[in-house]
């Protein structure tokens, strides 16, 4: 057998190289930069790398060759032996992920809230509550490795939606996941909770990755190839009822649904979102979902597009229970981060609703929105609202750090009208109130789903939106119309960590208790919740999110057009 080196289209791949290079440079910087310069150096490397990637993406996107037929526009190339597809949707998602990465760097670099320290543990290896930990924080140690980690995650997120081959898909999945597992465990405050979150995320992630690789093996067994093109061929030609194919498809789907947080693969979401440092949660909740939905879209539309009639009903079921469970569970949350986590689960359901709206290109009228376009647009609206909302959670604090117990947010609107107003805006957008970005996004995905005949899903989606409005509005009412809580009682509202029903796992629960008891008793003597002025970077991130949310509500046209003009996936 002769080995032929694959052709690599460097001229299209280079934005990814820039980001990857910046990540590697970050590792080197960690080794060679003196400690006090590391922070500035790492932030600079990461920012420049991401901006470089962003500029590159724009340049490349403008120059993609057209490969579509007359009635179906498509642009791009497949490269590296057809394992990577660089087409319009990929470029759109790259741009989005890189923007969110920039937002993540901005939030990671926040050092004003903790009086000169970052939100990350001074020394991750030090046991919580030990002398070593105390020493690390008094010396002002800081893990600047978070920036290269973020960059590696971004590289994975760029590769994920571009994957045009099952193995590349798996590699990208792992590349984006591993840094995130680490990042989740690096919180400076409430470290046990954070470490527990990281552990859970890792275990469950590994578990679901196992299913993915097994599914890939089964699909390979069916089609004899890893590449999407070959899988499509095999599906078209072969027996569509093959148990091998269907089981394989199902297992790969599980990995995708796990990453996007669809029910019943969502259980990690609230615990991880709550435990991870808020900056990480903000970045992860937005960017991971974007990348994972990008990959899911390509997987279903390209590799299994002709098997649509089989997987659509399955996704109907998943979308319906995801929306309902997300919305219903969000109602009873008492913690802002957990509430946002459940809301993000509900949004996963809404995006799946758009994904179900896939139709043959011949069926879609010229003036109609395609399901790809709707999902891409929804991802933009969702990711910026989520990034902004979590960023705001980070600035509402008391002496013990962030205040996430919802009861203590009461009356925030009176004391900090701007923060409360902006948070209300994000919530309204997530609720899909007209003239915010969320409304247009919802409208787009529901419209495509109805066009594809998935009206039962849309009815459930509307019902879930109805329930969802209830808990979003409840937070707004709490901020504006409820009197300030009694500070002596408020501290005890800070329970419900680790799990909804009980505190975390048996072994760690006592430790978690110990960890939070001190926090809580301090909160009791501490003064009330306050909004602290964050650094410029955080302010800019929040401002951009506000801008996007308002602009896309009033003038969604340009972005909607952009999402439409990227063309379809190339095969």
């Amino acid at each position: 057998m002769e080995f032929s080196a694959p052709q690599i289209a460097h001229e299209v791949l280079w934005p990814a190289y820039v980001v990857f290079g910046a990540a590697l440079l970050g590792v080197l910087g960690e080794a060679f930069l003196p400690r006090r310069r590391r922070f500035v150096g790492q932030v600079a490397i990461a920012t420049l790398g991401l901006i470089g990637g962003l500029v590159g993406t724009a340049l490349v996107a403008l120059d993609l060759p057209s490969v579509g037929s007359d009635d179906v526009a498509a642009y791009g190339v497949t490269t590296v032996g057809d394992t990577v597809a660089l087409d319009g949707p990929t470029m759109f998602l790259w741009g989005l992920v890189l923007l969110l990465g920039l937002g993540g760097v901005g939030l990671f670099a926040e050092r004003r809230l903790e009086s000169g320290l970052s939100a990350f543990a001074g020394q991750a290896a030090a046991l919580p509550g030990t002398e070593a930990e105390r020493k690390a924080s008094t010396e002002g140690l800081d893990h600047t490795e978070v920036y290269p980690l973020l960059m590696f995650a971004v590289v994975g997120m760029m590769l994920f939606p571009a994957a045009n081959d099952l193995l590349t898909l798996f590699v990208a999945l792992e590349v984006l996941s591993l840094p995130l597992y680490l990042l989740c465990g690096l919180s400076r405050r409430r470290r046990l909770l954070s470490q527990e979150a990281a552990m859970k995320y890792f275990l469950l992630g590994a578990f679901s990755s196992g299913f993915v690789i097994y599914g890939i093996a089964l699909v390979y067994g069916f089609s004899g190839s890893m590449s999407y093109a070959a899988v499509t061929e095999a599906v078209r030609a072969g027996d569509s009822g093959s148990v091998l194919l269907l089981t394989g498809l199902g297992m790969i789907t599980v990995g995708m649904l796990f990453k996007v947080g669809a029910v019943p693969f969502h259980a990690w979401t609230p615990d991880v979102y709550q435990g991870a440092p808020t900056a990480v949660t903000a970045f992860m909740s937005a960017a991971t979902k974007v990348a994972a939905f990008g990959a899911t879209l390509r997987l279903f539309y390209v590799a299994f597009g002709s098997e649509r009639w089989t997987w659509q009903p399955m996704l109907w079921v998943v979308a319906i229970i995801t929306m309902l469970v997300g919305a219903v569970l969000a109602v009873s949350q008492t913690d802002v981060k957990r509430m946002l986590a459940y809301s993000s689960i509900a949004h996963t359901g809404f995006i799946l609703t758009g994904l179900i709206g896939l139709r043959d290109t011949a069926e879609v009228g010229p003036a109609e929105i395609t399901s790809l376009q709707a999902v891409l647009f929804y991802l933009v609206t969702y990711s910026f609202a989520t990034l902004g909302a979590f960023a705001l959670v980070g600035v509402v604090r008391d002496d013990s750090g962030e205040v996430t117990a919802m009861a203590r947010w009461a009356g925030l609107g009176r004391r900090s009208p701007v923060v409360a107003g902006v948070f209300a805006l994000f919530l309204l957008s997530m609720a899909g109130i007209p003239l915010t970005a969320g409304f247009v996004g919802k409208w787009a995905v529901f419209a495509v789903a109805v066009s594809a005949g998935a009206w039962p899903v849309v009815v459930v989606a509307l019902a879930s939106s109805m329930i969802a409005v209830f808990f979003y509005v409840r937070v707004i009412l709490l901020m504006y119309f409820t009197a300030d809580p009694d500070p002596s009682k408020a501290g005890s509202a800070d329970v419900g960590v680790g799990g909804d029903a009980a505190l975390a796992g048996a072994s760690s629960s006592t430790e978690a208790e110990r960890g939070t008891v001190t926090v809580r008793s301090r909160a009791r003597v501490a003064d009330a919740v306050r909004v602290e002025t964050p650094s410029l970077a955080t302010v800019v991130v929040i401002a951009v999110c506000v801008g996007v949310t308002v602009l896309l509500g009033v003038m969604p046209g340009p972005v909607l057009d952009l999402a439409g003009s990227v063309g379809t996936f190339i095969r």
Partner: protein
Amino acid sequence: MSFVSVAAAGPLSMAASGGEGIPVVDPLQATGAFSLMWLLIALPLAGAVVLLLGGRATDKWGHLLGTATSFASFGLGIYLFVEMLGLSEEERQHGLRLFDWITAGSFTVGFDLLLDPLSILFVLLITGVGSLIHLYSIGYMAHDDRRRRFFAYLNLFVAAMLMLVLAGDFLGLFLGWEGVGLASYLLIGFWQHKPSAAAAAKKAFVINRVGDMGLSLAIMLMFVTFGTSSFAGVSAVAGEASEATLTTIGLLLLLGACGKSAQVPLQAWLLDAMEGPTPVSALIHAATMVTAGVYLVVRANFIFENAPIAQTVVVVVACVTLIWGAVIGCARDDIKKVLAGSTMSQIGYMMLAAGLGTAGYAYAIFHLITHGFFKANMFLGAGSVMHGMDDEVDMRRYGALSRAMPITFVTFGLGYLAIIGFPFFSGFFSKDRIIETALLENPVAGVAALIGAGVTGFYMTRLMLMTYFTNKRWAEKAHPHESPATMTTPLVVLAALSVFGGVLILSDWIKYWLAPVVGEAEEHSMPVPPIVFSIVITVVVAIGVALAFFLVGRRDVPREAPTDVSPLTRAARADLYGDAINEGLVVGPGRVLVEGVTLTDAKVVDGLVEGGSYGIGGLSGRLRRLQNGFVRSYAAAVLLGVLVVVGVLLVVALA
């Protein structure tokens, strides 16, 4: 908009083509004064923004600013109306695209405004009555330290309501629809320190979401069917869709209308909404917002005309509601709740007319306007009575107030005469036309409407007697007095309008005015002269009034002590039960019905609503237990999920 071009024929040519022609919305590009129509919405909106963002700095003059913006909007409305009067019929529809809201390729949703004969009438009603209520609130809310906020919400409401009626697209209408819902929520719950007010606000919110869901599904379906949701686009091609689709859209629109307009089965929130300040009840829950459902049905006439089944359902819902509301009106002692029941019932009349199709649309709007006048008048009158009676709402603690507050009494009395349809008052014309049309088009509905008119006569007379006549039953501390001029002036103006509102029907003006929007029905050859209908209706009403007079007015309504706890009070109350039996006898065997209806209202419907939210809370709590924090259970859930996903795939593929 490719669809608009299909509508080559203008409204006139369609109307000219015969009675069955359904007019197409085909507005001219607004020029001159009409291009200022956005100011109608922008003025009160700016008021709301200034008051909400201005904070305490605006406390001193905030209420004046709020009132001024509303009046300014009204002034502009009148000016545009006069301008429009001067134009020929085919020039009266003006469209204005503020900007392209959603554009994607060749697909566009504009942020469109539409000012046509229908919307201008609503503009006048909303800003006119709204301004009077702003004025009235200056006095009514004088002692409330959150008055500025109240005016901000009122302004917000007016802006949202104007958005609703001025939108040229169902999406824009939906924006206003959500906006009035939000403003109504804020205003019902304005006295949030009262748990009942907070609960009522929540209830209204929840029930309205059900209706909103119907509306959003309808809009979604329009997009899918017609590729557009603009009035112009949909009306041009509505006839081409299948009847099943149109019926579905119609029923979904009706669901939306039921929520907003408190029609059975989504009526339960309206009575509780009376927890809000009285001007709110007058503005939102009598004159404007609750009529949005009627507006929706009339505006979507191009859908309903092509969907006869949906129209029939509208008629059924309307008939049930108009009786239901009237019966509730008989059973309540709380003056505002009687008026709320009556509002439900009157909106039922409007819905009935709207459900009758081309023959009825104009009368629906006519009754909507006259009702806006006399019901706002009576709500504000009730507020004036409460103002003088230390916020007492129980009519059993009123009595003989006609001397104490003469202006309120006279103005309220004029409103009363209007609502029962006393000859030549506004309600006489508007309700007569509806009953008459109903009898001709759909006799069953006509008879229901006729009976409803009799019951209306009964409960309104009972209200009048118990409040202004009979014996004094005041609380000891009560010193009934007339309200200040800012409150009585609106009463006088509205009373005058209640009396003379009927002029709109002179030589069928409103019919011809609305014809470009809703079409013109063929003239029926009446089996009997119209005067016969009027006489029959008046006689039925007279029977209701007489029954009330003999059974309530001729007996002493027992005086009652103000405290609810002393044993004396209970004894006094026992006497009142006698009075309740009186009522029961009046309705005769229908007493069971009265109780049944009120009971159903209180238990079943409330139960469903509250049960719904409790249910979700409970479900939420139970589901929460699955989220126990243990990785092993999460992993088990994933495994279960794998089985489900693979299972569904296999079942779908192999079954």
